[in-house]
């Protein structure tokens, strides 16, 4: 466990120095938050039967969006790039066990995600007056952790389908963008056709979004909240199973 923290410490340092990582995890979510919460207010929508202002809808939406980018997209990009550059092989060549390498990589992106979420929570509250009710905190924690687990598992699984950083990027966008669209992040799910809602409920993003939105209306962990969380854990397990079958430490062979 000391090893995991040791590696995580250095990886966090490297991440924070990386321009692209800062762009993805800090700048883009903040710009989106400013645009959405700044522009759309006054309108109303419904979450879990509670009528809310658009702002109260978009602040959690941006949180889900950046949570997904920071965990899923960053993890895939990092793992694929590190594999391509031989860094995974080099680390595997040390006495550090495989599980510890995977754990430290996951912990790094989870800590980054928690940092981003915290930042967005604060900006949402201070700049736009959108607060989480005291009842909603447990649900928020379940949403962030469940999402982080699911996306780390999936990230490791998806990283096995790309052999270069160049091909990983479009793959992730192709997967996440439609999911964002149908998962009630940009458009409330109640305003989508029924079949899209059903499709969305198969995938994890909708469940993360449901948890975080519910947190903002003060939902406590009862039936629907626990169901969301259980589905996210299941996705984490699916991802881990696929990854354990397919995961490669060595860079792809050339020629």
């Amino acid at each position: 466990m000391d090893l995991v923290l040791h590696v995580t410490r250095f990886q966090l340092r490297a991440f924070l120095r990386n321009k692209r990582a800062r762009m993805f995890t800090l700048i883009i979510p903040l710009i989106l938050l400013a645009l959405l919460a700044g522009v759309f207010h006054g309108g109303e929508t419904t979450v879990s039967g509670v009528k809310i202002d658009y702002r109260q809808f978009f602040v959690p939406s941006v949180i889900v969006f950046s949570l997904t980018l920071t965990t899923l997209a960053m993890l895939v990009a990092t793992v694929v790039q590190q594999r391509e550059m031989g860094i995974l092989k080099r680390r595997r060549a040390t006495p550090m066990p495989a599980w510890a390498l995977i754990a430290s990589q996951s912990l790094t992106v989870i800590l980054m995600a928690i940092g981003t979420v915290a930042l967005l929570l604060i900006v949402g509250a201070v700049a736009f007056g959108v607060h989480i009710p005291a009842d909603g905190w447990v649900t928020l924690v379940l949403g962030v952790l469940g999402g982080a687990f699911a996306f780390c598992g999936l990230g490791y699984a998806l990283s096995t389908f790309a052999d270069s950083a160049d091909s990983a990027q479009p793959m992730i966008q192709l997967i996440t963008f439609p999911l964002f669209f149908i998962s009630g992040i940009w458009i409330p799910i109640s305003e989508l056709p029924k079949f899209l809602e059903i499709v969305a409920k198969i995938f994890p993003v909708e469940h993360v979004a449901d948890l975080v939105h519910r947190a903002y209306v003060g939902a406590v962990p009862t039936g629907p909240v626990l169901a969301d969380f259980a589905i996210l854990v299941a996705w984490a397990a699916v991802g881990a199973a696929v990854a354990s079958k397919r995961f490669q430490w060595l860079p792809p062979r050339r020629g």
Partner: protein
Amino acid sequence: MRSGTPRRSFLGMDTAIRVHGLRRSFGDVKAVAGVDLEVGHGEIFAFLGPNGAGKTTTIEILEGFGERDAGEVEVLGVDPAHGTSDWRQRVGIVMQESPGEQELTVRECMELYAGLYKTPRPVDETLELVGLGAEAQEKMTGTLSGGQRRRLDVALALIGDPELIFLDEPTTGFDPAARRDAWKMLDGLRDLGKTIFLTTHYMEEAERLADRIAVIAGGRIIDEGTPATIGHRDIAASEILFTLPPGIEDWELPDDLLALMQPERHGGRIELHSAAPLADLGRLGSWAEGRGIEVGELEVRRPTLEDVYLRLTAEAAEVKTEEVV
């Protein structure tokens, strides 16, 4: 073929690496088709061969990264397919071209890896050993020059104080000065008593560094020996090269020299292959003196390691073609 030559272990040395009957195929391609190897503790062993000869596959198996179809492999007394964390403490790996961790300085990178070993070497001492000075230590690894990056690669492989180091093409892409520096650094490793398993495409490098050499081609070891003896280099004929002045034809040479003449010109020069170069030079000298002429561009040379290597691998390629036909 020479692959049948029995391989003896070094007297008085227990082996660091022992490979017997190693085989590995990818589909129909036999990448490694029965390799035997033995490397003694403290030896610098050069593993040479053309691209696609089975080098990388063999090394990956020795490093514990590749699966094998058959054969026995022992590296520091352990089967690398089941290499434990303790085993990894004792083995260092320098891979081909690795850009290093981005966004960390050289020193941070070293500290990161040092923390993964039970008894790492001191970071400062290791950086000094590979010749990365105070200035370079504060650089981001992404901004290092090719030579500096390679030094860092070696430093990272050394940080755990391994007994055995795999060095995969350590100086590819170096300019001659950087290569000489790297050799000095590797001499330093020799002095530390490390066992080194080296691959390279530079024969000069193998000659300069290696205690022993093995050449692999078509998945088989085609020869093995010291840099001086491999490919019967020690008893191979010397080459005598020269030109004759205009008006003198090569058939005018004395018969015993004509018998040694190679049918093809070597850069426009006549080439004799001689097992007794001093005697043959004497004959050439008295003949030239008798004719009142001087030969031009005279040179006597032993076959270089590169000559031997090219001959061995070309022979192996011919055999392979015959097998196919």
